């Protein structure tokens, strides 16, 4: 027996991926979970007594914004947030930082660990920002990370789609993932950002043309989805659709879902895309969740994360520059916008969600409707689109609302009557079980991301484990894990951060035909402000 073998003894193990919900032991060898030793006399090097506690895989965030230039711009644009939040002082072995809804990188890692999360996927990094993002993620400790690269407005991709050159698109995506050390492909407002940068509004339907490129949002979505499928990437194309935040966008979301029939796809922060009503009249907004959820319930090609909003101040940050400008005009708040050549843009606007505000109240209810209307929790992941809907630190509160109708009702009762009349949330009695919470916070996001060795506690899984006190106050239970184990090391003990190992940054580099490279080089020579030779990351830049 290895001297490193140790055991978490006697906890209630909730491991939905393996169909387990029972009291049992979890054995760990180095950074992996292993089968119990065959010899019943085997003595572990250490025994962690988890009797009476709940044992789950480490949490996995499928969609958040924690790195890259736009997150950093949000920090620098809002020093008032850092000043007002309690700072995190340096202590031996741990770095200092500032907090608030856009915490510094070290604080981000520590906080995720403190919440029982061991993996987070940044959902929107411009290819040209990948180099910086890797540096920033290297300074985000404890958790493992990955990021998705933005390609839904990429000129080279749009040209190949317009030319009907599916294999060239596929090779480009594969090359791009390797060059940026990205994990997967993200599409944001396909073609719409390019159109906005040309000062021609944004795309509002799947069949709007993208000026200067012989494509439509429909073609971009379906061709990139096809390419991602053909490359066999572990995560399907990750989509931020059209018309985010606008009343009436549920219709285009349903159209988008149908357009993707036959492809795998992940729809991000679906709450922001599920509104009935008239786009020109904010007051007409109503929940549009029911028909969308019905479609998701009837089809298996889609997964979702919700993008639940919380009441309070936060920061909207998005690659969808048009949305940021819309929010700025709506709120009058300060606005950061940055156009990035060849591909994308970004926008940052501070925002405060208020429970007394009709739209915000409705958004809160619409998010919860999604959780309660999707029958199969494996299709859905918990997210706030951090920090857009609110901080990931709010996940325990959302879990509380999902597990207790009474907790939901407390908030519901305080919402404005017009908002309550536009959502059927009050008709939904469903309450999540602990096993369902385990699915939407770890097992399902791991499966969505194709992380075969995470999100479960079977032999061979990475030893990322969170152990909670079985507290009837579920919010408190999920806010303060008793222990968190990252890659076999106890990082949280008695709810305190005890260790901060470096985390990994995962990436994929699928094979591609090198014949595409001269075309890409020519594209860079003609249009980029940096030389082609300087675009791909060297192996030492992102090991």
């Amino acid at each position, binding site marked *: 027996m290895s001297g490193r073998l140790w055991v978490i003894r006697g906890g209630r193990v909730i491991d939905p991926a393996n169909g387990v919900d029972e009291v049992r032991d979890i054995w760990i060898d180095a950074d992996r979970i292993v089968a119990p030793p065959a010899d019943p006399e085997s003595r572990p090097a250490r025994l962690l007594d988890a009797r009476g506690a709940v044992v789950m895989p480490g949490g996995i965030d499928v969609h958040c914004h924690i790195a890259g230039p736009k997150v950093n711009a949000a920090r620098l644009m809002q020093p008032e947030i850092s000043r007002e939040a309690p700072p995190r002082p340096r202590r031996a072995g741990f770095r200092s930082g500032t907090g608030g809804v856009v915490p510094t990188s070290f604080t981000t890692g520590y906080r995720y660990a403190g919440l029982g999360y061991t993996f987070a996927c940044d959902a929107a990094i411009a290819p040209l920002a990948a180099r910086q993002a890797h540096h920033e993620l290297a300074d985000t400790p404890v958790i493992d990370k990955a990021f998705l690269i933005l390609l839904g407005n990429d000129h080279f991709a749009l040209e190949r789609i317009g030319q009907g050159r599916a294999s060239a698109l596929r090779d480009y995506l594969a090359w791009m993932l390797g060059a940026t050390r990205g994990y997967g492909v993200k599409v944001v407002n396909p073609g719409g950002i390019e159109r906005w940068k040309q000062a021609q509004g944004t795309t509002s339907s799947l069949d709007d043309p993208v000026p200067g490129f012989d494509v439509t949002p429909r073609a971009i979505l379906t061709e990139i989805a096809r390419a991602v499928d053909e490359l066999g990437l572990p995560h399907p194309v990750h989509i931020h659709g059209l018309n985010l935040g606008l009343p009436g966008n549920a219709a285009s979301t349903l159209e988008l879902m149908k357009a993707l029939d036959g492809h795998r796809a992940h729809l991000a922060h679906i709450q922001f895309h599920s509104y009935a009503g008239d786009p020109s009249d904010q007051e007409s907004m109503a929940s549009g969740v029911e028909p969308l959820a019905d479609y998701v319930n009837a089809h298996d090609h889609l997964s979702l994360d919700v993008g639940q909003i919380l009441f309070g101040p936060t920061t909207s940050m998005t690659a969808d520059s048009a949305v940021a400008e819309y929010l700025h005009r709506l709120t009058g708040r300060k606005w950061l916008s940055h156009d990035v050549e060849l591909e994308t843009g970004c926008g940052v606007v501070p925002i405060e969600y208020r429970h007394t505000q009709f739209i915000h109240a409705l958004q809160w209810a619409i998010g919860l409707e999604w959780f309660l209307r999707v029958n199969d929790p494996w299709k859905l992941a918990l997210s706030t689109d951090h920090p857009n809907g609110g901080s990931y630190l709010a996940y325990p509160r959302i879990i509380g609302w999902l597990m207790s109708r009474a907790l939901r009702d407390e908030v519901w009762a305080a919402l404005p009557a017009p908002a309550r009349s536009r959502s059927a949330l009050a008709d939904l009695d469903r309450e999540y079980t602990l096993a369902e919470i385990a699915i939407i916070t770890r097992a399902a996001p791991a499966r969505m991301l194709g992380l075969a060795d995470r999100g479960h506690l079977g032999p061979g899984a990475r030893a990322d484990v969170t152990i909670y006190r079985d507290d009837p106050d579920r919010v408190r239970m999920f806010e303060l894990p008793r222990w968190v184990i990252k890659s076999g090391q106890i990082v949280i003990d008695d709810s305190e951060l005890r260790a901060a190992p470096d985390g990994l940054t995962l990436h994929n580099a699928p094979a591609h035909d090198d014949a595409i490279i001269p075309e890409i080089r020519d594209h860079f020579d003609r249009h980029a402000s*940096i030389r082609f030779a300087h675009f791909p990351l060297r192996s030492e830049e992102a090991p």
Partner: protein
Amino acid sequence: MTATCTITDWVCLACGTLCDDLTLTLDPSGPIAQLEPDCGPARLWWERVAQTASGPVAAVNGQPTSFQTALDCAAERIRAARSPRLVGLDATSLEGQRAAVALAERIGAVIDSGSAEARARLAAMARVGRCSATFGEVHARADQILIWACDPTTTHPRFLTRFVDPPGRFAVAPRNVIVVGSTPNATSARASLCLSVRPEQRIAALATLLALLRCAPIRSEQVAATTGQTLDAWTTLADALRRARYGVVVTDSTLDDPVEYEALLRLVRALNQRPDGRFVHLSLGLPGNAAGAEAVLGWQAGYAPDVTFAAGYPAMGVPDLEHDLTIELGSAFNLNRAPAAAVATIRIAPDATVTPPEPAVAIASSALGISESGTVIRSDGLALPVLSVVPSSRPSVAAILRELLQRLPDAAEQGTSP
């Protein structure tokens, strides 16, 4: 080297454009034999920084010593310091900056950027936000270029030739270049419209433009008195800005008044209220890696460009403190940098042991962009890899700082587990 050596795609750190497309041919003895395209500041920077490769690797009180001894002395002085300060963060790579901020945090130092432009820009951004773009977007889209109180033809010689002169994907050449500034200069000589405005008149000029865009009532006599130009002249300029499909306001590091900066960012924001045009602001950066320093401070501390760790956590700005120790990075790196106000106690730079004034502890590093690889960030936010092109046995700034950190351990190591 025993023969000429040609390096393609060399990244030049001499000005804020950070051109990465230069072909450099070196003589066997080291000087530049040929630079294509040629650039005066690039040649000057290379010659100045490359010559620092001579000299001892380290010195204490002016006496040459070993690298290890100098590090021990530096650590001893840091341990004895009550109020340390770190300057020159812009003079090193992202890797060096990450290590430098870690050091500053551990010893409770103040990080002083010394950049009035960065302070003004970030203060204005914190009030109103900012609309900006990468250089490549200017190349691809810009049809109106407003040069505000600067002369990029002189200070950033290849910015206009690389990104403005050639046509772009969505922009034809020649593009309309307008200059507003205090004196005729090399850039105004090529402008279609040039308005001469003294520095103290620029805020009034921006207010006038903003009023014209908003169709607010304006008194022509007041405009002439406060801006030095007629209302007609400003109307002509405002009309040109209104016509832009994709307009750019270009400034440089001399714009250091927070009020003027805010007025300028408000003007750009107002120009984005038009339904048929976009407008962005571009700040041509300082030489080296000032944008990298802002980025690293942003993600590690939450503030930039000046941060104090005196209380054990990051706080914004430079407190009014007497410093008993200054750690200076990369003094030869920035041709334009003013000498440090105080003599450095510890200097870590390619020229640390050869350039006066003499610090107490000098440690000679390799030179980023010549004999050191690393990452830098342009003022438009794009990160570039910089590769060593001349071998050196000297350590990088990042490596030196990491060695220093090892000599200044935390009071206790972090806990361990199975």
